[in-house]
């Protein structure tokens, strides 16, 4: 019984996997559904173009048949046939082009819709989901996975449709020409299919090894070239070169095998197809003058048509193998996209939620308990009452959980029990938009958009006038450096402020909040990465902002801490001490220790 367990488990897992795959395919079909008329059109065009394409060899055969020999050419008949051929090819070409266009339209629309949906959903899901999944992973779902799905769909529409129709059509046409020779083709072609499979599975193992080895080489390259200066500082060049050569040799070995084995597919399928062609040519020739089962012999024209069918027939098989692998990848990618879309969005605002246009700034935390993981309590029984205009400093070593508090205040996360209220109203009964409107936030982890300086400052109030923007920048001590930039307020900021220093980025973030100063502030003081002069400016800007506003400051500077009305001392996510500077020093607890370690002179 016990021994069976894992097997059973595996089976159920397998069946679940299949189930999921099935439902994913079902979902993909649902995405296609709105475009059903176009899909039908595409199918119809595929049938038309394939049928016409298959007719052409017959006409060519007919043509050959009217050219019998010297003085035996029926020119009027030939002309008729050639006209038919020209008509067919023009129609085929038109049908093919329209079909491709329709396929593009279907695929790219589905993909656009899906991408827009996922992006919208990212803004609707709770932050807990975004925090739990890395940005890179989510990004690859919106970009790479959706792209993969698009490739799969497109190939599916273009090659799978036409491929299957071509195979069926060819068999019908061939059978109508010469059933016996058709049998040779139908029986042997799958063989080339098998060989291709055999070769590709073997090559695949080497490909896996190759990519592992390539990963090793890339790792070392990243490590040693990414930190080249350190390598040179310690004169470690020789060692890293030796290690590189070793890994490189390994990569080269696997790479050779992978490249070679995968390159065998084409020659070997070509060989098999040649054999089939040979067989058909022989059988066909014989059938031109022998008739084993009675009946009419084949004409030479028919043989010509037949031979060209043999060629057409084997091609779609190769295409379809490619499509199937591609499609498998697409289903896996689609599953990842759907998984994101299936995440429940943030609960909607209560129907009776209120709007607070401009809060007085009284913030109360009442018996608040919170944890990210159910069995790891983080904040327990936290009580803070902040009068309007007061200043709260949050201190503690890095990673002590100050972001958790910000998460709760801004309602990025909801408390597990207890309540947080602004001006006496539980924040869960305030419309999210309205709550967040009352907060101004400047984090150390500065975030700017790719766009102009102006766009970034007016991010919170896109309708602000130039005068207001400049006034805000001046108040944030950012005006002077902005004016020194090549295009002033119209300077394009690179993605995430790549062309700005850390201090400049923070000044812009401050200006962004300055533009519409809300009654409650959440500020994160800079640590050492900012140069001293800029830091002094930031501090001044912070001080200006905080005047008369309720503020929560993640504090690193002595003066901020000492001037705070209340200090929250955090450690490992807990608030362990609470009070003003003098009270806490008297307590002789963790704050005292922290204070001496950080600020007392040794």
């Amino acid at each position, binding site marked *: 019984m016990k021994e069976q367990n894992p097997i059973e488990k595996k089976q159920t897992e397998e069946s679940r996997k299949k189930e999921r795959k099935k439902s994913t395919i079902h979902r993909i079909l649902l995405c296609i559904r709105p475009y059903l008329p176009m899909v039908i059109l595409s199918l119809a065009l595929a049938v038309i173009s394939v049928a016409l394409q298959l007719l052409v060899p017959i006409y060519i055969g007919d043509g050959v048949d009217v050219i019998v*020999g*010297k003085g035996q050419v029926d020119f009027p008949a030939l002309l008729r046939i050639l006209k038919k051929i020209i008509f067919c090819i023009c129609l085929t070409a038109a049908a093919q*082009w329209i079909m491709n266009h329709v396929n593009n339209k279907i695929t790219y629309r589905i993909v656009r819709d899906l991408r827009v949906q996922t992006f919208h959903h990212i803004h609707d899901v709770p932050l807990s989901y975004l925090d739990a999944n890395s940005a890179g992973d989510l990004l690859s779902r919106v970009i790479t996975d959706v792209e993969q799905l698009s490739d799969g769909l497109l190939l599916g529409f273009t090659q799978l449709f036409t491929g299957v129709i071509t195979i069926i059509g060819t068999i019908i046409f061939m059978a109508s020409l010469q059933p016996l020779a058709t049998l040779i083709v139908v029986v042997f072609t799958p063989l080339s299919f098998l060989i291709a499979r055999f070769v590709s599975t073997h090559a695949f193992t080497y490909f896996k090894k190759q990519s592992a080895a390539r990963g090793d080489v890339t790792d070392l390259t990243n490590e040693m070239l990414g930190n080249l200066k350190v390598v040179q500082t310690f004169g470690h060049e020789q060692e890293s070169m030796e290690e590189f050569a070793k890994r490189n040799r390994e990569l080269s070995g696997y790479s*050779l095998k992978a490249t070679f084995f995968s390159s065998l597919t084409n020659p070997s399928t070509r060989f098999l197809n040649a*054999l089939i062609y*040979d067989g058909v040519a022989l059988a066909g020739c014989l059938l031109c003058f022998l008739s084993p089962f009675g009946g009419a012999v084949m004409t030479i024209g028919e043989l010509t048509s037949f031979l060209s069918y043999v060629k057409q027939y084997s091609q779609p098989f190769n295409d379809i193998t490619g499509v199937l692998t591609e499609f498998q990848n697409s289903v896996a990618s689609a599953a990842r996209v759907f998984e994101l879309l299936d995440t429940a969005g943030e609960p909607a605002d209560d129907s009776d939620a209120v709007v607070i246009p401009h809060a007085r700034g009284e913030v109360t935390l009442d018996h608040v308990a919170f944890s990210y993981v159910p069995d790891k309590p983080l904040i327990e029984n936290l009580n803070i009452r902040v009068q309007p205009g007061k200043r709260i400093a949050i201190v503690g070593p890095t990673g002590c959980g100050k972001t958790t508090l910000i998460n709760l205040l801004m309602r*990025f996360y909801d408390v597990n029990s207890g309540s947080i209220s602004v001006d006496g109203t539980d924040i869960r009964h305030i419309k999210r938009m309205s709550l967040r409107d009352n907060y101004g936030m400047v984090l150390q982890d500065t*975030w700017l958009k790719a766009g102009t300086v102006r766009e970034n400052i007016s991010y919170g109030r896109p309708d602000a006038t130039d005068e207001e923007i400049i006034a805000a920048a001046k108040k944030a001590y950012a005006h002077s450096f902005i004016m020194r930039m090549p295009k002033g307020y119209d300077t394009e900021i690179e993605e995430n402020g790549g062309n700005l220093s850390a*201090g400049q980025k923070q000044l812009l973030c401050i200006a962004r909040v300055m533009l519409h100063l809300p009654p409650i502030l959440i500020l994160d003081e800079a640590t050492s990465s900012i140069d001293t002069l800029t830091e*002094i400016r930031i501090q001044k800007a912070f001080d200006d902002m905080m005047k008369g506003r309720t503020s929560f400051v993640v504090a690193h500077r002595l003066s901020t801490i000492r001037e705070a009305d209340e200090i929250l001392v955090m450690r490992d996510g807990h608030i362990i001490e609470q009070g003003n500077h003098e009270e806490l020093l008297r307590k002789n607890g963790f704050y005292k220790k922290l204070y001496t370690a950080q600020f007392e002179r040794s």
Partner: protein
Amino acid sequence: MKRLFSYMKVHLLESILAPLFKMLEATFELFVPIVVANMIDRGVSGKDVSYLIRMSILLLVLAACGLVFSIIAQYFSAKVATHTAQMMRDDLFAHIQTLSWRQIDGLGTSTLITRMTSDINTVQNGVNMFLRLFLRSPFVVFGAMIMAFTVDPHTAMTFVVAIPLLFVIVFAILLITMPLYRKVQKQLDAIMRSTRENLLGVRVVRAFNRQESEKKTFDEEASGLYDRQIFVGKISALLNPLTYVVINLGIVAILWLGGQQVYAGALTQGKIIAQVNYMSQILVELIKLANLIILLSRAMASARRVDDVFRVVNGRKDGTAGFPESETGGASIDFSHVLFHYEKDAEPALCDITFHADAGSTLGIIGGTGSGKSTIVNLIPRFYDADSGSVSLNGTDVRTIREKDLRSHIGVVPQKAVLFHGTLRENMKWGQKDASDQEIYEAIDIAQAKEFVDSKGDGLDLMIEQEGRNLSGGQKQRLTIARAVVRRPDILILDDSASALDFATDAALRKAIRSQMGKRTVILVSQRVSTVRSADQILVMDDGKLVGHGTHRELLNTCREYQEICESQMTAEEIQADRKGDD
């Protein structure tokens, strides 16, 4: 390009044989239509069964030979390609190691990494496909035409019209669509940027209630991508129908012209079939050829980019003198009118810097980001050379000292705490290759890292992940300090490398260096007053200029910039006390 061929020359035989065998394979393929034509003309009309069987065996032999030749060719080309890439990677890696910091700055490490990885991969692919196809495809296309001429020059004239026409169609479509596809890619990049930006800034977006407008922007970008995709799709979808039409019109022409020839008795039925077959053979190879050309142009661009890196040569002359060791230990440092420029900056990073530090003394350097602190220390181990002026150790200009000797006497703790994948012991041995466990432990102790290393329980076998991901910032920093200390250098440089340490640890570290390392010149670069205040001498840097120079107390009384820095980090009472000097 030259370099690429020189690598291929190493496998000269394979490089020549691969395309040749591939061509042989194609030759056999070209015989097939003729054999089939003969089967029809002689076998069928003569009802000669044995002839037919002989011919079909011939077809079989042709196919088998084709298979064997093709396999040999594939092997040779795979071998040449992978080995070329291997040699190229080895050489490029070695070459990059020799670059100067100025050159590394100019190229950028991320560029170097892409050259090493994806560019060389592209080259490998290109070489492989080049060897396989560059003779075969043109050979089949023109071979088919030549064969058609040998069969019947009259009908073969269709090839003369069809082939250039096909070339024009295929290349025109490729040339038109290539820039359009780049546009599609660019738009996709824009979408990617928006998504990444929104994911990283989701808190800010929500804090400012900008979700709806972000969604709208994204919708527009997604629609822009759709429009571009459809546009380029319309053009590239022309390729198949157009080539199909040309090929089949060619066949129509063959039938018409062939019909006249047969009527005149100059041609047989079987030969017409052969011509038709040749015509259909062209298309596949032509498309292969077009793809090969795209692939090759990409590979050439990559090869050129790799070559660009090879062309950057570190022309700096190495010194010949040994390290000028002093009897007392440590080394004195002299900067004399040093001027230094980073390539990309308009303003000099260091402007007329002159100072002297005694052997065995402690030198503090303070100033804001970009003020030139790190630049000063980078000139000492010759990571950069001064544009003018000189840097000397114990009176010897660093440019005359052998680089290897120079650097082995200097221990640098870089700003960015970088450790490497491997054990703690391996990492520590970067500092001193033959360091004993005892020496390593001593260094770890000095660097205040003993406590946490012990707490991990693996001793020196502690596994460190790439970039030291499994350690905290402060832990990494202490280990990088230990790595430099293991070397027992004459000059120990800590380049803002205690920023992640709290004040108490920072102080203990400085004390340990002083008391346990004997007489060494120590340079402390920092933004913190507390780190440098007890140094024998402090340099105050502002915007590449030396604005203050002296002890903590002297500077408090004389240097305005220093006072400003102190005011932001200390209380008024403390400053007052320090100024008076009743320490």
